[in-house]
């Protein structure tokens, strides 16, 4: 039996799950699906989920990746939790701006800023 390697790294900061992506490109459909499954498990495993997703080092993403982030945001919201995004490179932030997703996601420059009021 083989197990797919995890696509995210998670560390706990005073009850907040801080997530980094393993891959620099979040465009492969299989990778995106796995990231979605792992993030949803993280959200479902917390009583009141608090998640910070760090985009530092991410070079590419696709609209399918945005879809996964929206699903995770919706799931966290339905459980009275929060998902915050940080460290988004300029060209990727432009994708959020074009799609107006910067209006539904709380975004910050750094992990430390994202943790303020969450941890």
């Amino acid at each position: 039996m083989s197990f797919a390697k995890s696509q995210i790294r998670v560390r706990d900061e005073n009850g907040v799950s801080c997530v980094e992506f393993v891959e620099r490109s979040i465009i492969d459909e299989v990778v995106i699906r796995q990231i979605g499954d792992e993030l949803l498990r993280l959200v479902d495993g917390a009583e009141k989920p608090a998640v910070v997703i760090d985009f530092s080092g991410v070079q590419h993403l696709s609209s399918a990746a945005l879809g996964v982030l929206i699903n995770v945001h919706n799931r966290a919201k339905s459980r009275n939790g929060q998902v915050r995004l940080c460290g988004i490179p300029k060209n990727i932030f432009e994708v959020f701006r074009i799609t107006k997703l910067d209006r539904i996601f709380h975004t910050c420059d750094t992990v430390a800023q994202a943790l303020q009021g969450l941890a």
Partner: protein
Amino acid sequence: MATAGAHPPSQIRVTLHEMRTDVERVQREVEGAIRARGYDDDAAFAIRLCLEEALVNAFRHGNRLEPGLTVEFRAEIGDRSCTFEVQDQGEGFDPVGVPDPTADENLEIPSGRGIMLMRAYMSEVEYLDPGNRLRMVFTRR
């Protein structure tokens, strides 16, 4: 397809059979061609994103992931602009029917952003009759 430029445009033609590996192969080939002409990181990012959306849409929504169906890709890469064509074997669709993903009521719907991203980054995007052939043009700034 005609692209003005100091050097003759490069032509790429690929028949894609398998989504995961062939889309990546096309991306690498196009990136090599645009980098050779000095396109910068922002241009490479935009083109990669749009090709990903166009090719995955062709496999997923056009060919409905049916094994055996292929996607035709053509590119003409010039010094100032690139023209891309993606044709699937589906029945075609009318992009007018796609809801605006930036409308307040659609913002939290997880799908439907690919076409708007292509329109944002490309200078021209059109679906040619019967709606299964996408033509898009990227112009350097």
